[in-house]
């Protein structure tokens, strides 16, 4: 016990551990504790509740003394939560003794705390030592089972909220790395071509001093010299042209590839993220990130970054040349450079924030579109075109407003740089003329300087543009890496266990799931035997679909474990595990493509005869043959229109083809009428045979075949049994069935004439 005391008190903050240990008697040790972060009036405050082997201790930070409750008959500790706030309550047989509130970050700790309290209470009252129930290692934080080689809990790991580093652009190096060689060649080409462009201004110096000035002073023009210099100018220009072409082509080639890699990687990563991620994001935003953002980064790399690199090289080289000609004049020429650099730095932050805003607002504009266009039928049916237009207008207006604000800073920027340029030139003129008057430099030198810094400052001007473009690209990179950094909340196991075949035995142990602050299911214990058909029954919102999503591992359980053939599903490779599962959904989704492709979606290498036999078994073969192009008919968006029942049978064929051991039918027949349902039911009967099946159905009558029905109510199992047993029990299921039988009754009557219907109503 002493061991646990030390290890647990270690994590406790110093103040509390000191206070707490002073409360303990000699043979008392702390077994569990939970930090409380709210007081009973729901104000933020600190407190601690601790379980020792003698009693329960509690204190809020501003309380004077500790409260204590010794173990006695009738004491109980429970936990409930609402809207992100948990409530820990201590009762005796008659009344509530105390309660504590906390934010749900502590939720799993609270559950363990209660467990510890119960065990101690039990021990104190009956003298029985708590049984060591778990032989497998558990995560100390969330009690998830850990496999032998896992040190850190994969469940808790994902809750790490460290912000990513600011130098996001550098992270693109990961994508540039494969193209190192070509990048180096590109860089060398850039060096050479820049050097070539710097030759012409240099030649103006002798051209001026050796040809033009002597001519003005009455000497004839030296044609040989002119020819030499002019051919030098031409040669430099041609060389610069060729080199420039080569490096631009080379680097554009590389950046295009980097962009493509970035896009593919992001999309691949996105596909592997859990359902939870897609639930929380809007389609428009994700599409914009993968499409527009990667393009922006691409453009940045191929055009702007390249230009910038060239500019930096040019400035460096120019500076060298200027210094070599005349250090003093060079100093004066280069003096405005730090000022401009400072100016750039000053504006950078402001602009970055602005551009991030612009990006967000763009996503918002896109979101309006993504909301409205798929829902266009609803918009038109309710004649809300004007409202939607207004919503778009409002988003656009905000876009304008924010762009205006960014542009206010931005527009000031470029003219300022230009002004700096002019002033810089002026300084060079003044200093140059003064130096010429002192005969320290020649006219040619001054001309060369002016020619150089003309280019130099033009480049500075365009360099200043790089600030905004870099910021935009950085913002885009950040948004891309937001996706790439997002660890799937359904993480792939580090040491996966491979199961080539499965029997289909599914076991749920204490399964609990929480979505946001809502606790959706809890304490689900269930064993499904291979080949058994289970029906999940309950009102909508009772957690049926959640359970199915958990079994498919679209989400991970927040508490407990799901085992398949005795293996935790979190230890299996996700894709491999899902191959064993066939899923038929309420709204079958058909991709754009032929029917054959859609049936073979889960098994792309299926032979035509396999596809046909799957379609036959799904009772889809005949209606497919009736279509103009048979199995080659195009379906999905913009494709052949199919009825709900037909689409459903295609999705059943799809599930049949992969021949899964586990089959999940999520309301597979609820979106079709009763006659179609019978067709589908026949198809399903073929599908269900010999497989572990979990079926959710709204119409209870469709579940009569099930070996067992699991009745769920508000996230808990309330009854288990087959139809006859549950009817005999006259419990929850019985009421549900009765209520539905009445509904079906009225549904049928709706077809009867109105007079009869009202007459029947009166009879009741």
């Amino acid at each position, binding site marked *: 016990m002493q061991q646990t005391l030390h290890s647990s008190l270690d994590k406790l903050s110093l103040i509390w551990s000191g206070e707490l240990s002073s409360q303990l008697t000699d043979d008392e040790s702390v077994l569990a504790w939970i930090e409380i972060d*709210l007081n009973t*009036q*729901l*104000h*933020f*405050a600190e407190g601690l509740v601790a379980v020792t082997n003698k009693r329960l201790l509690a204190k809020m930070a501003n309380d004077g003394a500790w409260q204590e409750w010794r173990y006695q008959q009738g004491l109980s500790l429970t936990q409930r939560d*609402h*809207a*992100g*706030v948990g409530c820990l*309550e201590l*009762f005796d047989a*008659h*009344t*509530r003794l105390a*309660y504590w509130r906390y*934010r*749900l*970050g502590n939720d799993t700790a609270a559950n363990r705390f209660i467990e510890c309290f119960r065990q101690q209470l039990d021990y104190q009252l009956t003298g029985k030592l708590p049984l060591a129930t778990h032989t497998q290692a558990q995560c100390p934080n969330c009690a998830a089972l850990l496999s032998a080689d896992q040190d850190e809990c994969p469940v808790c790991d994902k*809750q790490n*909220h*460290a*912000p*990513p580093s*600011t130098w996001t652009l550098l992270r693109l190096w990961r994508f540039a790395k494969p193209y190192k060689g070509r990048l180096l060649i590109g860089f060398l080409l850039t060096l050479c071509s820049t050097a070539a462009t710097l030759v012409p201004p240099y030649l103006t110096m002798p051209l001026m001093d050796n040809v033009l000035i002597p001519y003005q002073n009455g000497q004839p023009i030296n044609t040989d010299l002119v020819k030499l210099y002019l051919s030098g100018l031409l040669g430099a220009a041609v060389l610069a042209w060729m080199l420039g072409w080569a490096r631009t082509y080379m680097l554009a080639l590389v950046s295009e590839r980097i962009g493509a890699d970035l896009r593919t990687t992001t999309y691949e990563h996105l596909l592997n993220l859990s359902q939870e991620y897609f639930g*929380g*994001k*809007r389609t428009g*935003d994700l599409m914009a990130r993968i499409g527009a953002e990667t393009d922006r980064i691409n453009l940045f790399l191929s055009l702007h970054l390249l230009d910038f690199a060239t500019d930096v090289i040019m400035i460096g080289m120019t500076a060298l040349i200027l210094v070599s000609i005349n250090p003093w004049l060079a100093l004066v020429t280069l003096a405005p450079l730090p000022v401009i650099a400072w100016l750039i730095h000053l504006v950078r932050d402001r602009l970055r*924030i602005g551009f*991030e*805003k612009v990006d*967000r607002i763009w996503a918002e504009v896109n979101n309006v579109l993504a909301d409205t266009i798929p829902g266009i039928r609803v918009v038109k049916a309710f004649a809300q075109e004007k409202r939607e237009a207004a919503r778009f207008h409002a988003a656009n207006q905000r876009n304008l407003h924010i762009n205006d604000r960014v542009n206010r800073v931005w527009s000031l920027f470029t003219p300022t740089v230009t002004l700096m340029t002019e002033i810089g030139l002026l300084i060079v003129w003044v200093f140059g003329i003064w130096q010429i008057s002192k005969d320290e430099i020649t006219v040619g030198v001054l001309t060369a300087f002016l020619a150089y810094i003309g280019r130099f400052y033009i480049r500075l001007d365009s360099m200043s543009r790089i600030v905004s473009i870099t910021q935009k690209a950085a913002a885009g990179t*950040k948004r891309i890496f*937001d996706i790439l950094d997002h660890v799937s909340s359904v993480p792939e196991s580090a040491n996966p266990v491979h199961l080539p075949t499965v029997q289909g035995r599914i076991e749920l142990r204490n399964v609990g799931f929480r979505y*946001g*602050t809502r606790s959706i299911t809890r304490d689900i214990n269930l064993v499904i035997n291979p080949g058994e058909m289970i029906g999940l029954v309950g009102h909508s919102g009772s957690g049926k679909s959640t359970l199915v999503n958990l079994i498919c591992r679209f989400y991970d359980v927040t508490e407990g474990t799901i085992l398949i053939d005795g293996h935790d599903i979190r230890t299996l490779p996700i894709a491999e595990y899902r191959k064993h599962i066939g899923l038929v959904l309420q709204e079958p989704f058909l991709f754009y493509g032929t029917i054959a492709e859609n049936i073979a979606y889960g098994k792309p290498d299926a032979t035509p005869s396999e596809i046909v036999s799957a379609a036959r078994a799904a009772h889809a073969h005949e209606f497919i043959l009736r279509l103009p192009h048979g199995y080659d008919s195009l379906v999905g968006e913009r494709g052949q229109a199919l009825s709900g029942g037909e689409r459903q049978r295609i999705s059943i064929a799809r599930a049949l083809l992969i021949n899964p051991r586990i089959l999940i039918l999520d309301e597979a027949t609820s979106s079709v009428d009763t006659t179609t349902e019978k067709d589908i039911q026949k198809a399903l009967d073929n599908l269900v045979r010999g497989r572990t099946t979990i079926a959710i159905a709204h119409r209870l009558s469709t579940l009569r075949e099930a070996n067992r029905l699991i009745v769920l109510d*508000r996230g808990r199992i309330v009854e288990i049994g087959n139809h006859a047993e549950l009817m005999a029990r006259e419990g929850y299921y019985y009421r549900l069935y009765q209520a539905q039988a009445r509904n079906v009754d009225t549904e049928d009557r709706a077809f009867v004439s109105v007079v009869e219907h009202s007459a029947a109503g009166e009879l009741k």
Partner: protein
Amino acid sequence: MSDTVDYQLSRNTYGRLVFTNKSGPQEDVVPVRSFPITNPDQGIALIDSHGHELVWIERLIDLPEDYRVLIEAELANREFMPEIKRLLKVSGFITPSTWQAETDRGEVTFILKGEEDIRRLTTSSLMITDSHGIHFLIRDRLALDRHSRKLLDHFL
């Protein structure tokens, strides 16, 4: 007619509301606001432990004084939407970032997972959901002090 109600409401020793009408007492009754953000005082329902509505209260004002107090106390006990009065510190402008704020319920530190967790309610009011799903309200962001506004502005 405002003071007459055909049910009784009391609090038991377990601290739970008990609702009694013709069909007998119901323990563990919970009051729920229909429009907790946009119109908190309009439409409060009493819900039993199975989630069924027992009674609909259009306006709390219409209830007898003692019932109103009971319900208000229970609501206060259930509702947790701290209102941010001042932002003290933000760990960074890249999410996830840790926020330190002063609320009407004291000082708090929470983690903002992403910019999309900031929801616009109206043009000036915002709701911020932290990493544990707790909602923080900013009733009027334009009324915040300059420092807070500046910090917040980075995320909008």
